[in-house]
């Protein structure tokens, strides 16, 4: 466990490496760099770092202006404030003119170190996904975070990255390269497909193991690319299992569950169960307390999946 990294642990160093390779990289921060661990970048490249103070709206429009002069701008603060506080600046200053600004949101979903509802971010995926021109990604582990940042530096146009706060195991393979619209199957299975992303993956993987011990083979797919979404992976899950469960560290409205429902409804009939925060606001508490309060522990997920499959489900049944 000591060796596990959090996605945010690699932000500063990766941005430094990108800036060493590319003199157009600039970083903006709204008084959050000690928590986002971007301080390493600030100290290494003070001339390409802008501290805007607690002024997220100013930061987003400023990043837009700076990008027009040829800089690739990474603008960073808490997910909730990137998406809610500065929503219109992200839309009008960045997404509408399709500018090269990469928004790094920290403290994704419920896991905000006891800060509670005002700092939790249960709406940001829905807000960002619904903006034209915007790419939306939540990298899973530290390795994927490095990959996504490297992709962001090459990609032209706006992008929102939702970065988890706390350590988790490495899930993606050593030779993994991030691709927008891609996904990674972390566990094969033909009885049901669990589609998830980010910091609930340990719970999801553990739930899949619990199901396996009862003879139910659950496929687990990491859907880090929330927009564009990997339609082919959703269609394959629908075709091959007929039953899809999504797990969101977000409101069930607007998150991965919604994105998957869109694909299923139009292109790939399947039964769907959405697990996530069920249209209520968050609470103060540790991650463990949040998992319990919002029924997102591995046991809760496993129970929900079994309920979804029904009492008469036996492994190997044809999807129906």
């Amino acid at each position, binding site marked *: 466990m000591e060796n596990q990294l959090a996605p945010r642990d690699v932000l500063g160093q990766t941005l430094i490496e990108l800036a060493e390779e590319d003199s157009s990289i*600039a970083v903006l921060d709204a008084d959050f760099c000690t928590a986002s661990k971007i301080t390493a970048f600030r100290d290494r490249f003070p*001339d*390409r770092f*802008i501290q*805007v*103070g607690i*002024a997220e*709206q*100013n*930061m*987003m*429009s*400023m*990043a*837009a*202006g*700076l*990008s*027009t*002069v*040829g*800089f690739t*701008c990474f603008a960073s603060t808490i997910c909730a404030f990137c998406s809610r506080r500065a929503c*219109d*600046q992200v*839309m*009008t*200053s960045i997404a*509408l*003119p*399709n*500018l090269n600004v990469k928004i790094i949101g920290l403290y994704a979903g419920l896991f905000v170190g006891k800060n509670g509802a005002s700092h939790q971010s249960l709406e940001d995926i829905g807000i960002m996904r619904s903006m034209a021109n915007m790419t939306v990604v939540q990298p899973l582990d530290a390795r994927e975070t490095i990959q996504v940042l490297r992709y962001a530096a090459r990609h032209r146009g706006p992008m929102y990255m939702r970065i988890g706060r706390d350590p988790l195991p490495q899930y993606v393979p050593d030779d993994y390269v991030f691709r927008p619209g891609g996904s990674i199957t972390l566990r094969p299975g033909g009885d049901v497909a669990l589609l998830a992303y980010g910091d609930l993956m340990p719970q999801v993987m553990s739930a899949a193991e619990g199901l396996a011990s009862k003879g139910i083979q659950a496929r687990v797919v990491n859907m880090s690319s929330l927009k564009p979404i990997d339609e082919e992976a959703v269609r394959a899950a629908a075709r091959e299992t007929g039953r899809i469960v999504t797990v969101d560290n977000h409101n069930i409205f607007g998150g991965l569950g919604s994105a998957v429902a869109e694909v299923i409804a139009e292109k790939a009939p399947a039964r769907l169960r959405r697990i996530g925060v069920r249209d209520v606001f968050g609470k103060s508490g540790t991650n463990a307390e949040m998992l319990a309060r919002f029924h997102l522990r591995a046991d809760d997920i496993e129970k929900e999946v079994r309920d979804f499959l029904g009492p008469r489900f036996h492994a190997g049944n044809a999807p129906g």
Partner: protein
Amino acid sequence: MESEMEKIRKLEEIANRIRIHVVKMIGCSGIGHAGGAVSMAEILSVLYFQEMRLDPLRPDWDDRDRFILSKGHGCPALYATLAEAGIIPMDLLPTLHETESPLQMHPELGICPGIEMSTGALGQGLSAGIGMALGAQWKRKDFRVYVLIGDGESAEGQVWEAAMFAGHRRLDNLTAILDYNRFSLTGRVEKVMPLEPLSDKWTAFGWHVVRVDGHSVTGLIQAFRLAREEKGRPTLIVADTIKGRGISYVENTASSHSISMTATELAGTLRELGCSPGEIEHAVSVRKEYR
């Protein structure tokens, strides 16, 4: 060398032509933000034909000065200015507000040459201008950045976030111009949300403030010179203007903010602005009703 007098006369003529274009464009569209467009006519004339470093043949030249219209709804006057400067074709102007036209009702970067930032949602332009001004410093370029903000717009908190930042960072390559026409959509700014003591506020935020008659070409030339010469502080030019200036039947009213013109109003206004009978007849013939 043209004399000072000739230069001033030329800039005043261009301001008048900007007003004529705005009135004709609103005639073609059937509706438009008139009052806050024509109040900026002299400011735009002096900026684009005297103050700013531009190359109309290379609107994306790296070293050009940048202009952002933060009060984006005033863009009919900006489109007219860009056409006068040769940055966009004159024959685009009658397409104002058409669905597929680059001349949208609020300006959009990327679809219209010469537009440096998408604006319209108020309060955002000064922040974007700061980004450009910092970018100039980082790239060791000497281009200057001009941002025109509105008085009604100045109720937006982001304007003051930007003011605080630019003062703190001593961005002397940044100039803001406040089109102080005294009216927003619903009434007098001093009633809706008063700005005074305006100069004191900006001075306290670390800005060099110059106050000028925004319809005086000579005054504006002088104000922009003072802004350019000021070192270690950004400058705010507070331009006292008249909303709807030149459209006499709505001049100095909140109702000039957005107007549709009858054929009589259109013809009368163009006559007052010095258009020929043939020009007026043509403008009336292409006028549309707003439905």
